[in-house]
C-alpha cells in the first residue's frame, strides 16, 4: 500500500482524559479504494481515534491532513462535510423520527425552503437499496425497528451522505449473519468505487475476509501496520498484548479445591438477545472474574442477579435454594445479602450533590433506624469504621460527595454497600477512571473481603486486573460463556484469544463453570 497516495493522514495525535492517556502520538493514514482494519484490545485507543477523526473529540495535539492540507473538525457536522462519515457503535438514530427522516437528517432535500418529502423518500429508498436493506419501509419509525434493522438504517444513512471515508465501528455486532453477508458485499462495492473504509471489529474472521491493510493499536499508539493476511491470528494477538504491568496485586491464596456449596449460582440464564444460557457458580471466599470484550452481556448478567431485568428465564440460586430476585431492594435483603457496585458511579452509585455521610448510609438506612428514625450514633460508628477501612480521603463527612476525587468517590460507593456486610458482591468495572493508587487499595480490599467469606463476581475491562485478582475467569462472547479459565490458565493471551472467540491450538473451549476453584498461585 506504500505506493498509494494517502487521502487522509493523522500525525502525532494525542488525547488525554484527566490523567488517562487515551491516545499517545498516534499515526494513521488512509488510502482510497481500500479497507483498513483497526485492531486492539479494550482501551487501546481505537474509539478515541475515530472520535477524533469524526469530529466528536478534539485532540490535545497532532494534526490531520485531508488531500494534503491540514484540517480541523469542530463538530461531527464539520467532519461530514469534509466527507468523513462514521457509523458509531452507539446508534446515532433519532428514535421518534421515521427511517427516511433519519437517513436524510443532516442535509434533507429542500424545495421552497421546506423539506421536500417526495425527494426525501426517493433518497431514502435509494440509500436503503444500496445498503441491501430494501425491506425496510422508509416511513417506519426507527423506534419500532429491531436492533439489527436499525443498524442497517444507520449504514444506509451513512451511504446517503456520499462519504469519501467511511468508518465502521463494530458496525456488524448487532447484525444477523444474512445482513453481515449483504453488508460485506456493499463494502466491497464501495471499495471498488474508490472509497476509503476504516473497519473496526473484534471479529477476526470478518477482518480476514474484508481488510486490505491492518493497523494494531496498543496503549493509545499504533504499534504495527501490515498488509492483511501476512500475519497469523496468534501473531496478531501477540501484537495486541504487551500492556505495562503497572498494578500490584495481592497474592492469591493457595486453597484446597473448594468443597463448600456455591453461595451464588446461575442456571441457564437468558434475557432478550443479550444473555444466552449462562450458568455459573461463585463460592464463599472466591473472586470470579467476568472477561471478554466490552458489551458482551457482562453488565446485563450483573443486573440480572441484582433484580433489575424483567422477563429473565433460567434460575438463580442462593445457598443452593432457588430464589426470585424482583428488585435491588430484594437483592440487598439479608436473606440474599447482595451488593452491586455499579459501573457509572455518577448516575447509579451516588447522589453527587448530597453529603458523604448521606451517601454512605443510604443502602443501610433500614439497619440503622428504629421505627423510621435514624440512630445517629450507630450511623456515626459505622461510617467511622468504613472511612477507616477504606481510607476515604475527605475534608469532612458533610461535604458533597461530588467534591471528592474519582477514586474516593468510588470508595464511597463501595463503603456504602459494605455497611450492609454483603455476602455476595458484584462489581461492574469498578476501577474505570480511577488512579493507580486507589486501584491497588481496591484490589487489596477485594481479596480481604473474599478471605472474610464473601463471594465476589468481578467484571473488568482491564485484563491485568482479571489476571491479578481472580481465582477463575469466565469469558463472555455474544451473551454466552465461551470459556472458563482457572488459576494459572488466566493469562493475557488466553483472555484475549477467547475474548475474540479464536479457537486456537490448546485453547479448547471448556464447559460451563461447574468446576470448583483450584489453587492458583502461579
Amino acid at each position, binding site marked *: 500500500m506504500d505506493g498509494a497516495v494517502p487521502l487522509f493522514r493523522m500525525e502525532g495525535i494525542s488525547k488525554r482524559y484527566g490523567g488517562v492517556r487515551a491516545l499517545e502520538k498516534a499515526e494513521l493514514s488512509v488510502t482510497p479504494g481500500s479497507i483498513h482494519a483497526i485492531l486492539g484490545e479494550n482501551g487501546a485507543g481505537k474509539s478515541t481515534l475515530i472520535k477524533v477523526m469524526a469530529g*466528536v473529540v478534539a485532540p490535545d495535539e497532532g494534526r490531520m491532513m485531508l488531500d494534503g492540507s491540514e484540517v480541523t473538525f469542530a463538530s*461531527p457536522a464539520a467532519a461530514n462535510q469534509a466527507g468523513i462519515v462514521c457509523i458509531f457503535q452507539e*446508534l446515532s438514530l*433519532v*428514535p*421518534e423520527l421515521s427511517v427516511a427522516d433519519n437517513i436524510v437528517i443532516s442535509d434533507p432535500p429542500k424545495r421552497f425552503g421546506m423539506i421536500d418529502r417526495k425527494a426525501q423518500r426517493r433518497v431514502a429508498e435509494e440509500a436503503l437499496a444500496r445498503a441491501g436493506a430494501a425491506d425496510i419501509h422508509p416511513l417506519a419509525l426507527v423506534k419500532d425497528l429491531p436492533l439489527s434493522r436499525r443498524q442497517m438504517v444507520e449504514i444506509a444513512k451513512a451511504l446517503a451522505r456520499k462519504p469519501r471515508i467511511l468508518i465502521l465501528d463494530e458496525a456488524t455486532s448487532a447484525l444477523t449473519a444474512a445482513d453481515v453477508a449483504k453488508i460485506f458485499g456493499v463494502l466491497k462495492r464501495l471499495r471498488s468505487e474508490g472509497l476509503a473504509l476504516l473497519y473496526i471489529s473484534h471479529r477476526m474472521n470478518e477482518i480476514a475476509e474484508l481488510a486490505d491493510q491492518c493497523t494494531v493499536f496498543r496503549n493509545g499508539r499504533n504499534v504495527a501496520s501490515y498488509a492483511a493476511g501476512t500475519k497469523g491470528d496468534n501473531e496478531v494477538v501477540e501484537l495486541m498484548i504487551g500492556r505495562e504491568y503497572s498494578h500490584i496485586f495481592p497474592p492469591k491464596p493457595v486453597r484446597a479445591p473448594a468443597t463448600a456449596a456455591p453461595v451464588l449460582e446461575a442456571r441457564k440464564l437468558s434475557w432478550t438477545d443479550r444473555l444466552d444460557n449462562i450458568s455459573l457458580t461463585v463460592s464463599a471466599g472466591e473472586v470470579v472474574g467476568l472477561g471478554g470484550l466490552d458489551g458482551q452481556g457482562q453488565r446485563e448478567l450483573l443486573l440480572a442477579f441484582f433484580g433489575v431485568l424483567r422477563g429473565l428465564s433460567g434460575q438463580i440460586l442462593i445457598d443452593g435454594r432457588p430464589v426470585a430476585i424482583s428488585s435491588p431492594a430484594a437483592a440487598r435483603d439479608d436473606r440474599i445479602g447482595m451488593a452491586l457496585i455499579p459501573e457509572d458511579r455518577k448516575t*447509579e452509585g451516588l447522589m453527587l450533590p448530597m453529603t458523604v455521610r448521606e451517601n454512605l448510609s443510604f443502602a443501610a438506612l433500614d439497619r440503622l433506624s428504629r421505627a423510621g428514625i435514624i440512630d445517629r450514633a450507630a450511623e456515626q460508628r459505622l461510617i467511622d469504621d468504613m472511612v477507616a477501612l477504606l481510607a476515604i480521603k475527605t475534608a469532612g463527612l458533610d461535604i458533597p460527595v461530588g467534591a471528592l476525587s474519582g477514586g474516593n468517590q468510588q470508595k464511597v460507593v463501595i463503603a456504602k454497600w459494605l455497611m450492609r456486610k454483603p455476602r455476595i458482591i458484584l462489581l461492574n468495572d469498578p476501577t474505570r477512571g480511577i488512579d493507580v493508587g486507589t486501584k491497588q487499595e481496591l484490589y487489596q480490599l477485594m481479596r480481604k473481603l473474599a478471605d472474610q467469606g464473601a463471594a465476589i463476581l468481578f467484571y473488568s475491562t482491564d485484563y491485568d486486573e482479571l489476571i491479578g485478582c481472580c481465582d477463575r475467569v469466565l469469558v463472555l462472547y455474544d451473551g454466552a460463556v465461551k470459556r472458563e479459565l482457572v488459576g494459572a490458565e488466566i493469562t493475557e493471551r488466553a483472555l484475549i484469544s477467547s475474548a475474540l472467540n479464536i479457537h486456537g491450538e490448546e485453547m479448547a473451549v471448556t464447559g460451563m463453570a461447574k468446576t470448583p476453584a483450584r489453587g492458583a498461585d502461579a
Partner: protein
Amino acid sequence: MKDWRYWLAEQRGTLLAFGIFIVMFIIYTSNHPAGFTANVVQTASNKGVLLAFVAMAQTLVVITAGIDLSVGMIFTLTNCLASWLVIGTGIETAFGVVAVLGTGLLCGAINGAIVIYGRLQPIVTTIATGAVYFGIALLLRPFPGGSVNEDLADALTGRLFGVVPASLVVLLAVVLVVWVPFSRSVLGRAAYAAGSSEMAAYMSGVPIRRGKFTAYALAGLLAAIGGLFLTFFTYTGEAAYASGNAYTLFSIAAVVLGGVSLFGGKGSAIGAIFGALAFRTIGDLLFVFDFDPLWQPLFQGVILLIAVSLGAFALFRVRNRLEWFL
C-alpha cells in the same frame, strides 16, 4: 403500499384528539339550549381558539423535550400591551399588532436563549421569566382597562358569510403560516430530533440549538397571537394572574390530549389544537348540564390527570428496570 398505515400511526394522536373533540362537541351542542346554531359555534370557537393558540405555543417547546410555563404569562402580557397599542387609525393599529407580536417573539426568544445558551432547565427558566412577564403586565395594567380597535376586533371575532367563525379562519391561517413551514423545515426537524434524542441528533450534525431556539421563539409569537385575540374578545387588557396560570396549565392538558409526548420528539400542533378545543368543550359540558360552575376546576383537574396518565403506559413494557429512569 402500506403507506397509509404509517401515516395513520403517525397521526393517531391527532385523530384521537379530533375524535374526542367531535364527540364532545356533539354532546355539547345537542344539550345546549340553543342547539347547533352559528351563534353557539361562534362563541365556542372564540373561547376555544384562545386556548388553541397557547396550546400550539406549548407544543413547539414540548416537542424539544422542554416545557414552557411562561406561555400563559406571555399571553397575559401581550393582552395588556395590546390594550394600549392596538387602537387608532389603520396604520396605528397595524403598528400595534406588529409591536404586540414582536413582544411575544422577544419573550419566547429570551426563554430560548436562557435555556439553550445558559443551559438552564426549561421548567425553572420559564417559571422565572413567566414571573417577570407578569410583573411587566401588571405595570402596564395595574387595573383592568384600555381599549382596542373595535372594527378589527369585531371582524376577527365575528362570522364570515354569516356562518364561519372568523377566529377559526385566523387559526387556520396561523397554522398554515407558522406551523406548516416550521414542521417541514430543517429547523423544525431539528427540534423534533433534539426532543427525541439530543445525542443522536448531535452526532448526526443536526442544528440542535437553532432548532430549539426557533421553537421557543415561535412559541412566544403564538402565545402573543393568543393574547391579541383575548384583547379582541374582551376589548380590554387585564393582568390577571390566575387566568395566566390557568392558560399555562390548560395548554399542557391540551398538548397531552392532542397526542404530543411530554418526553419530546413526537406530536403535532394540529393535535394540540384539537386537544385544546376538546378540553374547552369538556369543561363547558358542565354548563349545559347545569352543574354548579364551582365544580369546573375540579373537573378540569381530573381531566388533566387522566390525560397525563395516558402517557405513562409505555413504561409497562420496559424490560430493563433501569430504563424507567432514563
